[in-house]
């Protein structure tokens, strides 16, 4: 059931009605049933995979919790009789037991993900004629696996106690609005709001509906319309080169943003309709002044997942600290300090690439990002020197230059995601330098991409609205601002938005109802 189908809208209407009619203590159970129905409709076999993840995580976290509790009790009871060394020994024993459960659950769950998502890629790189195992990839598996494994690691670290009710853990793992493309939530953040009993609140409900409408506007009016031009360019690399490649990068940058943030708006809005707060996943990323900043503001929940559960554990692991000390002692203090950060950064970006898909283009894209981040890290002293000499840091034109540079840098890297073939991507990069077709593009070429003049006008107006909304968001949420104005103003604005989605949305005859891009990851 796509977010953009009428079935989904009916599903939400029926669910919302039931949610606020039934006794409040049953609300979370209704959400769990709805999530399983939603997922079961997508594929009945998917239910088996997600159940395996929920059950295995439940068993492991309960075991970890029991081991920790037994240790705490034993230390409390024998506080005075144990020596420091004995306490250390008992702690080490307890940690080893906990680690065993952690590793078993991680291997099992990432094993399922690897088997379903990566086995074809690995084997086909070894045996060229390999036709594939034909595994069906469950919808959103990368998202729910990461979310559940984050919970497992948090319990292992003792951040909070394990959830004792497997069905409540099941709801956290399968909550349907975030199942397809995130955000990847944290248990301590989402669960209280997910399980709380809620009264109907008109303000929260209407904010939720407004957010959903805004998401549909981005997805149906902007992203799915731009998709036509993007597909024309990237599916015909022999015909569309030179300036078309730059145009494709620009269009894809906007399409991806509108598609992904639109999907997240719908997910957050649906959550809000039920009184559930999902974390924001974007913070106006195209206003970033550097690639590092961009990655702090784009798909935030994935970035923080990788930081907390991979980057930090690798970079401060004992072998890494030992290696760092060794280099500091024998070679150079500066290099020794950098080594853990650099190795962890490259590993994280390699994994981020692989997370996005089992293909070389994603691996190159991931490593490309890591390398650019490390280069900009190395160039920091040079930037500082430049800023000491020239007082431009706070000047508008310099900020505009930085924002534009980051947008195009990201667009160039994202081209690997577009063409899905490393060699073609490099061929297209090269064509930007060799094929001179600016006049062809301006003299009607742009009209051969599947979009007419009315589409371009509509896109220009819609993107301008998007830009103005983004600029205004610096002052806070627009819906909150609007709610302070006369009520009819909000109604007029959102009625106009609703009508524009109905009239200008890319659906119906001639349009392909497209999946959200991130649902494929």
């Amino acid at each position, binding site marked *: 059931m796509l977010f953009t189908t009428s079935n989904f809208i009916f599903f939400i209407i029926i669910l919302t009605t039931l949610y606020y009619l039934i006794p409040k203590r049953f609300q979370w159970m209704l959400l769990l049933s709805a999530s399983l129905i939603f997922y079961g409709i997508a594929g009945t076999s998917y239910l088996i995979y997600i159940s395996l993840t929920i059950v295995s995580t439940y068993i492991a976290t309960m075991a970890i919790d029991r081991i920790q509790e037994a240790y705490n009790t034993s230390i409390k009871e024998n506080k005075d009789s144990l020596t420091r060394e004995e306490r250390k020994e008992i702690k080490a024993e307890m940690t080893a037991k906990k680690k065993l459960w952690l590793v078993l659950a991680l291997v099992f769950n990432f094993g399922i993900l690897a088997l379903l998502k990566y086995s074809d890629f690995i084997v086909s790189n070894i045996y060229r004629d390999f036709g594939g195992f034909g595994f069906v990839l469950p919808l959103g598996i990368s998202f729910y696996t990461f979310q559940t494994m984050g919970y497992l690691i948090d319990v292992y*670290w*003792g*951040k909070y106690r394990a959830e004792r009710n497997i069905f409540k853990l099941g709801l956290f793992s399968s909550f349907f609005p975030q199942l397809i493309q995130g955000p990847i939530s944290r248990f301590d953040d989402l669960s209280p709001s997910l399980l709380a009993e809620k009264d109907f609140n008109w303000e929260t409900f209407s904010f939720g509906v407004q957010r959903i409408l805004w998401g549909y506007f981005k997805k149906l009016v902007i992203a799915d319309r731009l998709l036509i031009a993007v597909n024309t360019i990237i599916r015909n690399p022999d015909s569309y080169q030179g300036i078309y490649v730059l145009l494709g990068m620009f269009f894809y940058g906007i399409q991806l943003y509108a598609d992904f943030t639109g999907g997240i708006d719908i997910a957050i809005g649906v959550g809000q309709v039920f009184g559930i707060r999902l974390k924001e996943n974007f913070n106006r990323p195209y206003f970033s002044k550097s690639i*590092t900043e961009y990655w702090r503001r784009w798909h935030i929940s994935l970035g923080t997942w990788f*930081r*907390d559960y991979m*980057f*930090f*554990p690798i*970079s*401060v*692991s*004992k072998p890494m*600290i030992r290696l*760092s*000390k060794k280099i*500091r002692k024998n070679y150079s203090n500066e290099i*020794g*300090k*950098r080594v*853990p*950060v650099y190795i*962890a950064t490259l590993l994280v970006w390699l994994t981020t690439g692989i997370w996005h898909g089992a293909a070389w283009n994603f691996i190159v894209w991931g490593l490309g990002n890591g390398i650019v981040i490390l280069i900009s*890290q190395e160039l920091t002293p040079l930037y500082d020197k430049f800023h000491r000499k020239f007082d431009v840091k706070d000047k508008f034109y310099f900020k505009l230059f930085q924002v534009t540079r980051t947008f195009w840098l990201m667009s160039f890297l994202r081209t690997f995601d577009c063409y899905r073939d490393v060699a073609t991507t490099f061929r297209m990069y090269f064509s930007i330098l060799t094929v001179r077709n600016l006049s062809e593009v301006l003299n009607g070429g742009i009209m051969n991409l599947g979009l007419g003049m009315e589409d371009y006008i509509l896109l220009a107006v819609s993107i301008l609205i998007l830009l103005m909304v983004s600029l205004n968001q610096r002052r806070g949420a627009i819906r909150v601002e609007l709610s302070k104005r006369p009520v009819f103003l909000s109604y007029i604005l959102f009625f106009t938005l609703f009508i524009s989605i109905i009239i200008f949305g890319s659906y119906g005859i001639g349009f392909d109802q497209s999946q959200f891009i991130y649902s494929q990851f």
Partner: protein
Amino acid sequence: MDIILELLEDLHPEVDFEQCNTLIDDKILDSFDIVSLVTDLSEEFDISIAAEELTPENFNSAKAIYEMVERLVD
């Protein structure tokens, strides 16, 4: 405490680390700084700082870092 302040000043000489208690919340220390600081602290105090210690509460101020180090030395 002096050693910790010295290490922090090496990272960002422009920051008043004695006063600031929002080092993470205000994004003064980024993840690269934290790892760099952890390698320095491990070396200076001969301690092992595990990943679960890398929380905003432990790194928001020089005092919080000092308290974490004291706890780990014990």
